[in-house]
């Protein structure tokens, strides 16, 4: 069936909600806006090695998805965030609240899909999309290889259970013998990627069981796909699929290992984004 990005149901934009507080929006510098969206498992901290490179020439905008980092956890309604559209609606609200135009969006992993959905809602406000390690669907389907099975996703949820059991325990700083790190750094870094375990579990389910293949067809904004050469979460064919199904897109493959190129090879990511923006 042909799929239209136009919503027939009018979403009432949360009246009276301070979206900038809700999503812990951070703004650095001035100029053409560039928005960074993090993926599952972390927060805007993920961009700390990449985003500052753009602060001299751009208005850098960072935010946390509701449920992650410094976002307002009380804004979390599981029914609303039961699909990536809930997160995309928030991003639309941020862009409209800041009245951004000609905006560049840079998203990692599921954050890239969230940005893509937001751009499909309000394409006129975006001029470029950069998708780092995107996957339109993680679970294999007929004629499509996402790399994972439903059983794998169930195992992920089990793994979250095992890990977040002691979530509240790890809030209290436990000093470990890391001589390089002074205590101040310890305090500052302790909140990295903080995530409410219940919300993380739901976000994991929504993220890894999402199917956004149809949405790729609706992308009208010029798009760069940054693909790591060795990424088990979003392997090469998955990135290739995303690039193939977005009309105006470019695929750049970085010779890096792992799913978080912006952490393991930030300079290469900065170079690729800069080249795309020029």
């Amino acid at each position, binding site marked *: 069936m042909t799929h*239209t990005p136009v919503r027939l149901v009018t979403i009432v934009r949360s009246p009276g909600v301070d979206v900038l507080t809700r999503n812990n929006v951070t703004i650095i510098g001035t100029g053409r806006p560039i928005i960074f969206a993090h993926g599952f498992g972390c927060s805007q901290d993920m961009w700390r090695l990449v985003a500052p490179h753009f602060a001299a020439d751009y208005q850098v905008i960072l935010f946390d998805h509701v449920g992650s980092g410094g976002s307002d956890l009380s804004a979390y309604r599981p029914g609303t965030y039961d699909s990536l559209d809930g997160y995309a609606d928030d991003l639309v609200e941020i862009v409209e609240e800041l009245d951004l135009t000609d905006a560049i969006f840079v998203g990692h992993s599921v954050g890239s899909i969230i940005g893509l959905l937001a751009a499909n809602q309000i394409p006129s406000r975006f001029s470029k999309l950069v998708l780092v390690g995107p996957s339109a669907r993680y679970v294999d389907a007929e004629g499509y290889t996402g790399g994972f099975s439903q059983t794998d996703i169930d195992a992920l949820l089990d793994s979250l259970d095992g890990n977040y*059991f002691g979530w509240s325990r790890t809030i209290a700083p436990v000093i470990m013998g890391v001589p390089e790190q002074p205590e101040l750094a310890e305090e500052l870094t302790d909140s990295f990627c903080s995530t409410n375990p219940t919300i993380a579990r739901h976000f994991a389910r929504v993220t890894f069981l999402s199917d956004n293949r149809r949405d790729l067809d609706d992308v009208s904004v010029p798009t760069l796909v940054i693909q790591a050469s060795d990424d088990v979460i979003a392997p090469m064919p998955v990135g290739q699929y995303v690039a193939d199904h977005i009309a105006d897109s470019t695929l750049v493959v970085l010779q890096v290992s792992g799913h978080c190129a912006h*952490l393991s090879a930030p300079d290469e990511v900065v170079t690729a984004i800069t080249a795309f923006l020029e």
Partner: protein
Amino acid sequence: MSDEPRHPAADLNAPDPNAPDLNAHDLNAHARFEALFDHAPFGYLITDSDDVIVRANATFSAMTGLDASALVGSQFRELLPAGFQLLYETRHLPVLRLKGYVEEVFFDLVTADGTVLPVLVNAVIDGAEVRIGVLAAANRVSYEQQLLSTQRTAESLAARVTVLQDASSAFAGGTSEKGIAVSLASILEEMLVASDACVALVDPAGSLDVVAGTNALDGLIEGDQHLLGTTVVANGTPVVVHATDEDAAEFPAVVAGLRKARLQTVVVFPMTNDSTTIGVAAAFFRRGRDLVASEVEVVLALARQASQVLTRMRAQEQLAYAALHDQLTGLANRASIRSSIALSLASPRRLSVMFLDLDGFKLVNDQLGHHVGDAILQEVATRLRTSVRGGDIVGRYGGDEFVVICDGTDGDAAESVAARIHDEIRAGFAEADGFPISASIGIAVYEGTAPMATDAIIGAADAAMYESKRLGRDRTTRVDL
């Protein structure tokens, strides 16, 4: 990616036999450290910045059944099942890189014979290397998972009890149909973790009217198409529609609507009181949902509870209506007429009260029967309603006697209303062809000056009506009080 060359595995896995100039003491110390490393009471690995294992101790080899040559050169991630690789890549490695260390992370390791070994991992970044400590944790993990599972069950039961308690108090405290419907919609939305929910009630015309919540499928629950809602009302059983090609065959418009609204599932529940379905409650989901039987039961019970309250509320409304209205004509009854007049008289302003008695009605009743008589009275009621002005009140005082209350109206204006009534009644009645029927009317006009009793003004209008009868019927007599 690191530009540093990886450590040659052979250099690290064993003391180099060709190492020059080591004295016996050094060799002894070196061997002790090697033994300490290899036989530490936990698995110990070193990886490079690309997660490739460059060194693993004997304890880790024993845990996994993989000897050093199998481990070195492969990525640590490869030892994990796919589900845990997701966590490793999306959370563990980012936190490790940002924070410099992680501790007590739980993973499953796949061992050489394919069995799964739950472990706890601490990792520290040291320059270009990562040091990883691995502790077998099968017992602790299974214990914690049992605790977690028990805790979840308890929380889920507690949440369900809370929902039922909240519902009971919301329904018991509800004072309007809308209030009950709003409560049911919000309880459903919260309990089922739906993106939206709505409640639609069958209106007197028999169609569904959304009275609370958000109907994310405009026109599909209510409205002309009557697709889902009326199906549920007719069958009295819940219907689930997913945005899938299978369901599109049966509910094409619903599935198209779901896709346009970016929803995956809609569930519509009947609101049934005994055997009567008085409405539906619908829940909308952004992700595909299949409700379990116990969830459906709870929702149906809540919907039944809401239906009972609504039905009781409607019965009370009907009683209240009956107390103030004439059953045959639906006009205000005597009690209602008297209280309306009393209310008007409470403030000092003009009031005209019209008393009307039909002429020729007794003959119709006697010769054509009460059945025809009742039909005439109903028709008269209709004609009175169309003859009076917007603010006037029409009532049946008893038998073939009617009262029209014209609040704030002087005698002349009341007389023009009366003139229209005369015309309407004189027009004849199809049910009583050949029987002349007309109206004798008396109007009492009160100027709002001196205090006036309800009985006095009704009595005056009644007396004026008799004067009209005496003067030959089919006319109006006016008395200014």
